[in-house]
């Protein structure tokens, strides 16, 4: 806590610049448990409409738990999650999905015995029927998926599955896109491609909350960032400031 206090002045100013923006998502003092394990210890996060915000931190810091708490896979024990000012904590995942929140989960989690096309159709499940324009857009972003349209998702490479997981999330026409480790297990050249696509998606009007271990890449495209450590927010600032922050450079950017 003392660290947060000493490092937060710059963070406050960053949040201040967005004070007038519409809030897409707010987490207020969220505490989430796995059984007896206290995984999130009073997390407070704001995401404004149109932003890319990133959560960085090491393994086990609570990044994925935060996303699962937002998407309704986990319910916080205390605190609340607000979507466009409306409380969604405790609402089951399938209802959150219907509020135009889409998640590309950790480990991709594509449906292995369904084809690429069927996976994309599943993405549009909340809308009942798939919008051909959305499909065209996904194929535009990921031409590889179009080539593999009838292939079973479980037989594709990790990179292709990652594209499919993101494409599937986009088929839901989300206002808020939650991306969990889109760079995991991918070749560096693919990582750059994925991040530039995330920027494109954002420019087309989707708010993005991006969870990443690759802090350099994530801060490169985000406006703001939060650093998580063992279930708490260590510091928050605008992305450029975090990139210059000495502690962040040492701990997460691998500099000595």
């Amino acid at each position, binding site marked *: 806590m003392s660290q947060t206090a000493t490092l937060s002045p710059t963070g406050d100013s960053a949040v201040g610049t967005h004070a007038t923006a519409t809030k897409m998502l707010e987490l207020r003092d969220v505490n989430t448990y796995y059984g007896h394990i206290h995984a999130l210890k009073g997390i407070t996060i704001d995401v404004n409409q149109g932003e890319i915000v990133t959560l960085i931190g090491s393994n086990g810091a609570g990044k994925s738990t935060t996303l699962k708490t937002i998407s309704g896979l986990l319910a916080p024990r205390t605190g609340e999650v607000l979507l466009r000012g409306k409380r969604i904590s405790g609402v*089951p*995942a*399938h209802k959150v*999905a219907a509020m135009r929140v*889409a998640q590309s989960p950790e480990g*991709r989690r594509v449906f*292995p015995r369904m084809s690429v096309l069927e996976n994309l159709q599943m993405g549009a499940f909340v809308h009942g029927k798939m919008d051909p324009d959305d499909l065209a857009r996904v194929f535009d972003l990921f031409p590889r998926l179009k080539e593999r349209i009838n292939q079973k998702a*479980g037989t594709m490479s990790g990179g292709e599955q990652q594209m499919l997981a993101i494409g599937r999330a986009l088929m839901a026409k989300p206002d808020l896109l939650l991306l969990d480790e889109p760079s995991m297990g991918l070749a560096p050249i693919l990582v750059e491609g994925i991040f530039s696509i995330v920027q494109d998606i954002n420019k087309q009007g989707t708010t993005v909350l991006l969870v990443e271990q690759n802090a350099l890449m994530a801060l490169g495209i985000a406006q703001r960032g939060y650093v998580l450590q063992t279930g708490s927010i260590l510091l928050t600032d605008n992305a450029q400031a975090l990139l210059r922050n000495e502690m962040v450079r040492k701990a997460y950017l691998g500099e000595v």
Partner: protein
Amino acid sequence: MLGPVRVRDGNPWHMSDAASGCRFGSGIERDEMGILLMDFEWTLFFQFMIIGLASGSLIALIALGYTLVYGIIELINFAHGEVFMMGAFFAATLVVVTGVTSDSSTGLIVSVLILTLLASMAFSGLLNAAIDKLAYSRLRKAPRLAPLIAAIGMSFILQNIAIYWKGPNPFTGPDLIPSEIRSYNVLQEWPLLRDWFADSTLRLRLIDLFVIGVTIPLLIILSWFVYRTRIGTAMRATAQDREAAALMGIDINRTIGVAFLLGGGLAGAAGMVALFYNNSGRFQMGFTYGLFAFTAAVLGGIGNLAGAVVGGFLIGLIWSYSDGFMGTFVSGWGSQWTNSVIFSILILVLVFRPSGLLGQEVADKV
């Protein structure tokens, strides 16, 4: 090419060397007229195939219920056989309530049969879904053993309800299908078949066709439902990755409920058909059929729908051949060995191909 096809068998002059043992293999010949001469062993072979396919249909319908539920929540629903049995009991009671008997007009009998089939499906489907709501849904996050034991408990409860309902002894099926219709042998009655099978003792009864005639459309409707409808797609997605399915906006609890409803409905249809096919029922009928159907589901690859159907027909055929046919070759072989054969096969499958004949290895979740 077929010429004047006729089947003749069981004719003493053609059985001359039967006493010397099995002549299986050279047993179907054509005589100079092109008439098919079939040894009695071959007739038995086909006769027990017919019986095996009919029992196999029933087992397949029940096995689908095991596999549907297992595919989604990885629970062996040990009460499933009892849901099948309750379907048969419900059908027996419903027929009596309608007051229609074998003396009624054909139209009335057929209407009551269709009504009973649909009502038994609805009854068992709702029963299965209710059992899930009452017992299993509370245990979704409990260790796996808890719902398993709850399922065994539900099966005892249902058996005791059944004893209360119709007593502990076997009862005769309702007097609805006239016995001359039950045993109506289409091979001797239908125009073209009558000519072919004139001299054969092979029997294909109307009741055998009834079993297959109910099963096949149900299998087609089920696969259409699972592969072509929105809820079916949701079921498949849930079976493959429950969390990811929830993120797609699929209501997991509702989908699980649908799986129980569907599996129960098929078991109800099987129960109704089994009641008329065997012309009897008993509170323990769910145990026998249920165990065979569970074996069929595992044999085919539990969680795999096509596997349950293949496994069902295989177990039905093995059951039938072991009961009646093997005795022709091995003296003293009869139905007392059937359970041993079926469960030996189950053990061999589990040892050498644990995912079953058509089951996939569980996909890696990286």
